[in-house]
């Protein structure tokens, strides 16, 4: 086997892998999946209501996003193994290694976020938080529908923050576009379906791989109540 074409090799390898995939492995727990789809929907709602100046619903949806991002950060510290930052944020070497194998079709699926995806996750969470915080201080042109914390800035400052709110949203939307493009890339080029696991929580694998460690839902509930209280306080501008 001197000059066998590369794609043949990888095809054979993939078939081999497919045979080895005998069980379903849990990869995403329920909170991670729910938070992911809440973010996807609520960011869409905020985008649409913002662009069409329906600011009342824009704010409700913004609070949902704020709660979800806070919870995702919390779950990144104390959640199930695949949700934890300590498990998926890799160093530069691992990232370069992963990126240099990106063109290959025979790489096994990552358990949880891959090294590059992890970067996108961190950037997206940071940008969403930035956009939400800027929104909270934004002032609408007529001064009425303004962010819950806008009473702490002047009219002109609030207008300026509203512009930044839009500018950073643009950046966020580009990163989201890249994130979706990457999912397509995995589906078409690497023939790995990443959407299915984000819905069902499971991916095909073999019994030899490590299962994820699931954190108790009660822990999520406790954080959820605290985050809700915080969002409620923010929505009242901390005036009690």
């Amino acid at each position, binding site marked *: 086997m001197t000059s066998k074409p590369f794609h043949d090799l990888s095809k054979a390898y993939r078939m081999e892998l497919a045979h080895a995939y005998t069980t379903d492995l849990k990869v995403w727990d329920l909170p991670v999946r729910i938070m992911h789809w809440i973010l996807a929907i609520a960011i869409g709602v905020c985008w649409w209501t913002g662009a069409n*100046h329906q600011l009342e619903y824009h704010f409700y949806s913004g609070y949902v996003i704020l709660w979800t991002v806070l919870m995702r950060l919390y779950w990144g510290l104390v959640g199930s193994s695949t949700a934890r930052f300590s498990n998926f944020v890799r160093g530069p070497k691992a990232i370069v290694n992963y990126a240099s194998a990106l063109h290959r079709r025979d790489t096994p699926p990552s358990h949880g976020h891959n090294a590059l995806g992890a970067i996108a996750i961190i950037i997206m969470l940071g940008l969403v938080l930035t956009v939400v915080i800027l929104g909270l201080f934004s*002032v*609408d*042109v*007529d*001064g*009425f*529908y*303004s962010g819950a914390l*806008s*009473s702490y800035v*002047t*009219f*002109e400052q*609030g*207008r*300026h923050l509203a*512009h930044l709110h*839009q500018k950073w949203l643009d950046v966020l939307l580009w990163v989201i576009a890249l994130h979706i493009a990457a999912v397509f890339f995995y589906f078409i080029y690497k023939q790995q379906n990443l959407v299915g696991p984000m819905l069902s929580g499971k991916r095909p694998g073999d019994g030899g791989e490590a299962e994820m460690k699931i954190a108790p839902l009660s822990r999520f509930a406790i954080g959820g109540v605290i985050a809700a209280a915080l969002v409620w306080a923010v929505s*009242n*501008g901390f*005036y*009690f």
Partner: protein
Amino acid sequence: MSSSGFRIAVAAVCAGFSLWAMEAAAGPPEVAQVKSRQDKFRDMGGALKAIVDELRKQTVDWDNIVAPNAQTIKDRSGYLINWFPKGTGPEGGVKTHALPAIWQTNDDFVRLGKTAEAEAVKLNQAALGKDRNALRAQAEAMSKACKACHDSYRSPERDNDE
């Protein structure tokens, strides 16, 4: 570069800068008109914001905050349709969010201006009435009157200014 070439380059840069400075300092009267109306609009926006901010707090400062700001809005809204003489739209190259439609469907523009003026009178009454719920309801009605005009006659802020 030869020394005369250098001198020409310096002169060209100086001339460029002074042209730019002149343009920035003294514009046609339309520029001043637009700047002045935008300032006044910002005062109105700031006044409505001050009232809304006050409504968020436990206690409303009726005399020092609500009443004077409601007065500002009422005074200004009585005049705002006069801030748009012909030639102060974007067609003259002036930096403005005023849309050409102001002069094309001027009757409608004036009607919206009058509606806002009427709402501002009611806002002033609510400010003097010192009833929190009534003030909140009227502040919202006021902002709807502002928004109704902005939706049709003010271009959204995107990719330009600030």
